[in-house]
């Protein structure tokens, strides 16, 4: 791994180009989770009564929050990175400078997780306005860390997909067959305890399940013992995907 501080130069480039799209992406990052909160939280929540002693929204917010982190960081490393490689040839000019291929890819992963973090923070603000707040300031800080880690994990997973993508259509397999179903099997909208056995088993293999569990614990300040497994999965899979994603992208970039 030929990584250096130049990751920040790549991050800076993305930040500079971002100011042209900042308003659009802010709005987009907000609208989708808002739909979930309003339709599921307010609409369905009215029929669901109390969830472990609190309104349904308390259950829903930590899950939707972390799925918006997943969505933003994933899409940035799929479409965003693909455009930079194939359409803008940005990576070609990057690797001709002292910035290595590893720096360039890691810089984009850092950027994508930053985008995830921004989406998550926006969600947190909206939830706060609706009166749904994490239990303490410490909880907020832990949540920020969780969002960052989850962002790095999904950004890196996205890089693995992008390293093999011949065109945009290829991404539909991943988004439609992996990301979207994951939303429904990871305990974002309903507690996993109500799922049949096979679904419970399946959900344990989905990274989002573990991310949601950590988020929910941080939100409520109550950490069950199973949290250790959740943390191990997010950190372990994140680190693995980071290394593999960079290696595979390097193979695509250096020929």
């Amino acid at each position, binding site marked *: 791994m*030929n990584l*250096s501080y*130049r990751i920040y*130069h790549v991050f*800076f*480039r993305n930040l*500079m*180009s971002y100011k*042209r799209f900042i308003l659009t992406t802010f709005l987009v990052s907000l609208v989708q989770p808002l739909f979930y909160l309003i339709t599921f939280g307010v609409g369905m929540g009215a029929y669901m009564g109390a969830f472990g002693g609190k309104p349904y929204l308390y259950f829903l917010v930590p899950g939707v929050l972390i799925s918006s982190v997943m969505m933003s960081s994933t899409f940035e490393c799929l479409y965003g990175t693909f455009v930079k490689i194939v359409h*803008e*040839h*940005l990576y*070609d*000019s*990057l*690797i*001709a*400078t*002292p*910035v*290595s*291929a590893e720096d360039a890819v890691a810089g984009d992963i850092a950027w994508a997780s930053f985008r995830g973090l921004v989406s998550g923070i926006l969600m947190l603000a909206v939830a706060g306005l609706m009166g749904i707040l994490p239990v303490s300031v410490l909880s907020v800080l832990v949540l920020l860390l969780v969002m960052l880690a989850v962002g790095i994990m999904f950004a890196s997973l996205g890089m693995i997909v992008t390293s093999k993508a011949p065109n945009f259509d290829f991404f539909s397999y991943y988004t439609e067959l992996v990301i979207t179903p994951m939303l429904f099997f990871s305990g974002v909208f309903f507690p996993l305890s109500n799922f049949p056995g096979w679904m419970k088993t399946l959900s344990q293999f989905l990274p989002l399940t573990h991310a949601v569990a950590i988020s929910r614990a941080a939100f409520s300040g109550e950490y069950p013992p199973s949290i250790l497994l959740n943390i191990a999965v997010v950190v372990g899979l994140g680190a693995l995907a980071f290394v593999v994603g960079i290696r595979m992208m390097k193979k695509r970039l*250096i*020929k």
Partner: protein
Amino acid sequence: MSTIVSARGLTKKYGDFTAVDGIDFEIQEGECFGFLGPNGAGKTTTVRMIHCVSPVTAGTLTVDGSAAGVDNRALKKKTGVIPQEITLDIDLTVYENLLVFARFFDIPKREAKARIAELLKFVELETRRDSKIDQLSTGMKRRLLVARALLNKPRIIIADEPTTGLDPQARHLIWQRLRQLKAQGVTLILTTQYMEEAQQLCDRLVVMHQGKILKAGDPRGLIESEIGKDVVEIRMPPDRDEELLARLGPLACGHERVGDTLYFYCRDGIGLWKALVDLDLPNTVHRPATLEDVFLKLTGRSLIE
């Protein structure tokens, strides 16, 4: 003068395909060295190895005293690349493109700002400082690529077909600038398919074809040894070839029939030209030999795709 780039048995393979096939060359500091060849000759692959973005499959390649390799940041720091494709950052303005690139080379901000002002002037783009990339003409984009390649004050500049798709004005401006850089002592490595460009810029060059070097030398010397001084072209169907060859053949040092044209290559074309005037043929041309004649003779006249 000392050697700045040297290659021995340099080879590049992509799977079973050999793009560069064991070539040897040496580039001297401060000269302009050209790689000429048709599409797919291996020129770009060769310069990509020199500027350390493509790994060497076999052989040795030394650039400024150290081995070229993908992770060699030190070499990339002293090299400037004018790429074949327009790889500008379309999300950024002209100025931002240069500013971001200066960071990639760790140039401090204050120094970068001064350098950018200087370079925008050098490529005559001062008035387009805040334009977006898609508002620029192809010529302006190419000039911006030249400016970008100079940010780090490179000792070696690699120009990979730098004037493709340009109008004559823009092309001549780029040539001017490249010659100016050479005069400042920069080593210039050029790939091109334009023979005029090679003749205008190169001190020495190699003609590449199918991954191999066919000939090496200086442009004038190559023309004289491969073709001669003059070329006479007679545009007519081949039915009178025998008669023409019998009368004109002894006056030339070589001939070639291609499609509707019979070519005679001569050390001194005056004698042949006089004989031709006596024959009173329509459609004849007498002209000095060029690098293009050398190129076509060495790489063949059939289409290469």
